[in-house]
Structures are given as structure tokens and as C-alpha cells.
């Protein structure tokens, strides 16, 4: 299942959502807000989203992952809006009978999510400046 939410991600609920009596392994990935990047300090982040397309791409992501790996269940939750340092913006949980599939599938999901799902992050730096983050576009 996939979810887009404006509120705090409930890690335990994400873990429980992929429980399966046939599962020997669960891998949970959390993408968390760094307060320090290099020598700059982050006060907060704002996440924006093209929601109809993001949901479509997340659903494709889950479906593709299930064809690539023999996994039991997948849960992807992406948070939007205003986040403070330490808070999770994304949680991905994968359950499988054997752990190799859960690790590989989880890593592929977050790698691909970060290329294909239209969600954007604005850094609100502690010096009062704001900056949309666009990988590969740092010079613009």
C-alpha cells in the first residue's frame, strides 16, 4: 500500500502493516531530516507534491517492485508539509520470507522513488534563506 500524509509517520503502524505469517524478514527504511548538511544548519523543511502524479508513480513503484522481488508486502508512506530536523519524510517497509529480497527491494524502492516521484523539498536554512532542492540543478 502507498500513502501520502500531512502528519507524523507512525513507524510501528508501518511495520505492522507489512506483517505476514510467512515473513522471516522485515526491512524498514526511514528518510530523516538532517539538521546539519556540510557546514549549513537546517531549521525546517517543506515538502511539496504533484499529488495525483505522485500517487500514480508510487503505485507503479510498488507494482514494479513486486514483479522484481519475491516479497510478501510493501508499505510506502511519504509525508508532506512542514518537517523539523529528526522527523521522517518517508518510510518504506518490505516483508519477505528471506532477508535478501527485503533489503534489495527496499533499497530499490527508495532509490527509484527519489528519481521518479514528483515530490520536492525546500530547505529553510538557519540563516533565514530558503532553497528548493533539485539534484543536478545546484547551479541554477
Amino acid at each position, binding site marked *: 500500500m502507498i500513502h501520502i500524509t500531512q502528519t507524523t509517520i507512525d513507524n510501528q503502524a508501518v511495520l505492522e502493516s507489512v506483517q505476514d505469517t510467512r515473513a522471516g524478514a522485515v526491512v524498514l527504511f526511514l528518510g530523516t531530516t538532517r539538521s546539519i548538511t556540510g557546514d549549513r544548519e537546517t531549521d525546517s523543511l517543506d515538502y511539496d507534491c504533484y499529488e495525483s502524479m505522485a500517487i500514480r508513480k508510487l503505485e507503479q513503484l510498488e507494482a514494479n517492485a513486486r514483479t522484481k522481488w519475491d516479497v510478501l508486502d510493501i508499505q510506502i508512506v511519504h509525508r508532506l508539509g512542514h518537517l523539523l530536523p529528526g522527523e521522517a519524510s518517508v518510510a518504506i517497509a518490505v516483508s519477505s520470507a528471506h532477508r535478501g529480497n527485503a533489503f534489495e527491494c527496499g533499497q530499490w524502492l527508495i532509490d527509484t522513488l527519489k528519481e521518479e516521484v*514528483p515530490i520536492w523539498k525546500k530547505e529553510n536554512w538557519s540563516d533565514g534563506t530558503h532553497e528548493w532542492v533539485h539534484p543536478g540543478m545546484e547551479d541554477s
Partner: protein
Amino acid sequence: MTLQIKLFAVAMQKAGSAVLEVECPLPATVDDVRQAVLATCPALAEVLPHCRFALNDEFAQDNAPVDADSVVAIIPPVSGGAS
């Protein structure tokens, strides 16, 4: 034909709006729309080469046809997921 183009993140910031209206004669391709966007909003010149276009919630190639019903969006490089 007037197209309503959705803008996000840095594209929205540069254009100063979440929607950009551009005039573009149909039939047209994504590349035709890209040129029309540049002509209408030069403030996007710097960022547009880094952006993909989406038609109807799916990434579209430059030669994809745009019609009167197409939902068109400009998709800057995404940065969701992990920090």
C-alpha cells in the same frame, strides 16, 4: 489554444505562480510546448533544461503529442524521499 501548465518547486518560484498559461497552436508536441513556455516566461530559461514534462500524470518524451485535454506539468528534478 491556451494551455494551463502546472508548475512546482523552483519552477513555481521562478514563474511566481503555480499555473502558467501559454498559447500554443495544436497539434503540438511536448517540445513545442517547451518553446512556448520559454517565450511566455523567460524567468524559466535557467531551470527548464533540467525539467521533465508530464502529460496526464506520466512523464512524456519531447516528441509526445499534446492535445486540448492534456494535463501538462513541468517536473523539476525530484528531491523527495530521504534527506
